[in-house]
């Protein structure tokens, strides 16, 4: 999509939103829907200011402080079994912390992912700082798709404190549960954050792809040939390599290695028209848990192989339907 297409698309979006807003005003007036109360307006403006200033609104700050002081009940995503850690390992859940960022992709979907996730994580970290946490565990990532070129990036987790440690200046962010977090810590491995690597590029083959060129030279026979489309392979490989390089660099920023749990590559074809030639868009995104460890510290845990005596009944295969025959 060219810059002009983008601008045109953006104007259409704005016009559409304006039309819906006008309809909404008409409906509100006719049905007598109430407007915001002064408290709601106050809350709204506090959020607005806090997001701009990269801090928490005072009412969130206050609730976090009350929770950390034990004046409000703690909230945790941990299971009952993980609460055992509270006694066995001195891991204390303090509160559930969250962060989100609804992001509009103006020029790059890929860069939007990078910025959106990082902003959401940093906001969650602010809440963890407010409760004096050492870490955020069991971090879950969730997206909501918007109506146009926008998406909400949301993260939630449980802030924990480890007995004997002072509050951290930069609480670590771990996608693993409290149970796994402690086991990793005992092996000298610290999950420290979420790393993201994303890249996209456009490719416009001047003479057509290798397959298209073959089809031009031998219109009938080329359809029957097996052949690698080498230019597309190389293009995709480059995009993926750059994204993985970015992932590694994001890990390096945290002085950590990255265990990538999510990776996706997409390639789109845009047919040529009078104004634009045929184009291909490729984008790759990888998201992973950043871990810090020293290779010379070998794992200490003893392993005991076990065979479960639970019965696993055979699943019926007759319900599996094959469309082939």
């Amino acid at each position, binding site marked *: 999509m060219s810059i002009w297409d983008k601008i045109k698309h953006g104007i259409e979006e704005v016009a559409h939103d304006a039309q819906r807003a006008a309809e909404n005003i008409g409906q509100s007036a006719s049905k007598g829907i109430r407007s915001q109360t002064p408290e709601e307006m106050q809350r709204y403006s506090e959020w607005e200011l806090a997001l701009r200033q990269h801090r928490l609104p005072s009412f969130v700050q206050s609730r976090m402080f009350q929770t950390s002081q034990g004046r409000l009940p703690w909230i945790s995503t941990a299971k009952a079994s993980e609460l055992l850690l509270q006694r*066995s390992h*001195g*891991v204390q859940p303090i509160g559930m912390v969250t962060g989100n960022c609804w992001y509009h992709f103006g020029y790059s979907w890929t860069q939007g992912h990078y910025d959106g996730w990082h902003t959401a994580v940093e906001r969650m970290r602010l809440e963890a700082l407010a409760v004096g946490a050492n870490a955020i565990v069991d971090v879950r990532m969730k997206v909501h798709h918007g109506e146009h070129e926008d998406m909400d990036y949301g993260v939630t987790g449980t802030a924990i404190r*480890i*007995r*004997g*440690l002072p509050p*951290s*200046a930069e609480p*670590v962010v771990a996608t693993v549960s409290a149970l*796994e977090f*402690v*086991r990793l*810590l*005992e092996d*000298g*491995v*610290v999950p420290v954050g979420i790393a993201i*690597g994303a890249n996209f590029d456009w490719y416009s083959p001047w003479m057509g792809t290798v*397959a298209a060129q073959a089809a031009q030279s031998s219109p009938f026979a080329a*359809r*029957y040939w*097996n*052949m*690698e*489309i080498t230019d*597309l*392979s190389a293009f*995709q*490989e480059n995009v993926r390599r750059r994204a*993985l390089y970015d992932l*590694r660099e994001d*890990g*390096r920023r945290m*002085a*950590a290695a*990255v*265990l*990538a*749990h999510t*990776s996706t*590559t997409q390639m*789109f*074809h845009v047919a040529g028209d009078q104004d634009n030639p045929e184009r291909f868009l490729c984008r790759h995104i*990888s998201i*992973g848990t950043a871990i*810090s460890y*020293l*290779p010379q510290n*070998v794992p200490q845990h003893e*392993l*005991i*192989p*076990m*065979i479960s*005596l*639970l019965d696993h009944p055979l699943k019926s295969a007759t319900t599996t339907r*094959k469309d*082939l*025959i």
Partner: protein
Amino acid sequence: MTDTAEQLAPHAIERLKGLRSQGSHEGIFTSDLSVNEFVMVRKANFEPLGLVVGSCIYHMGIQYGNWNQNMEMDVLSQAMYQARELAMSRMEQEATLLQADGIVGVRLEVKRMEWDQEILEFMAIGTAIAHRSGASGFKGVGGKPFTSDLSGQDFWMLLQAGYRPMEMVMGSCVYHVAHQGLLKSLGNVGRNTEMEQFTQAMYDARELAMERMQHEAQEAQADGITGVQLHEGSHNWKPHVIEFFAVGTAVKAMENADALVDGLSPQLVIPVND
């Protein structure tokens, strides 16, 4: 009750306090291992070196099967084989550049491109690893890094069992299953009977795929193949065309296997919470 903080490594405490060793290049890599896999690979005395990927975008030739005959679609079989091989070899090249002993957790994915029915994307992805102290004897065929689709946990167990991975081996067969003739169909009306032509086609296609996989293992001088999976699929081909794809890790017993094996015998347990 003991405090975790008292038992932690100094490095872990430093990170938890929000400090970091800036500029340290130790322990920085990318991988698609899960946290548990990472722990188990390290437990096996190996260290991850990096995520390695190979891909190939491939135009599949067209081939038509004879309507009433069982037959292999050799053009499609070759295409599936060659494209996977290209993706795998590119991944291996990346591992060689990292001076890895091998690649674990290899996944082979095939995806059809939306804009063209005949273009498929093949991707091989895994984590390159190397022995922590540089011990020799873990490389694969011809001194190249070994490849394996075993998870980090399975890799540890394989070594404990006295075997080492040699190569991820595969066999593919795309097969045309003959249609049943009208007379035959009419003859079967109201009868319980085996459809021998279909049975034979499925048997033959599966057999060819497994033969090819076994041949690859033999070429790799392996003792056996572990974790074999047999996939059946159709990549948007015509009805009655099916691919059997057999894949597994060819393994070889280590020379001093008995001395290496920890002698761990699994304990029987009965979980009470599931």
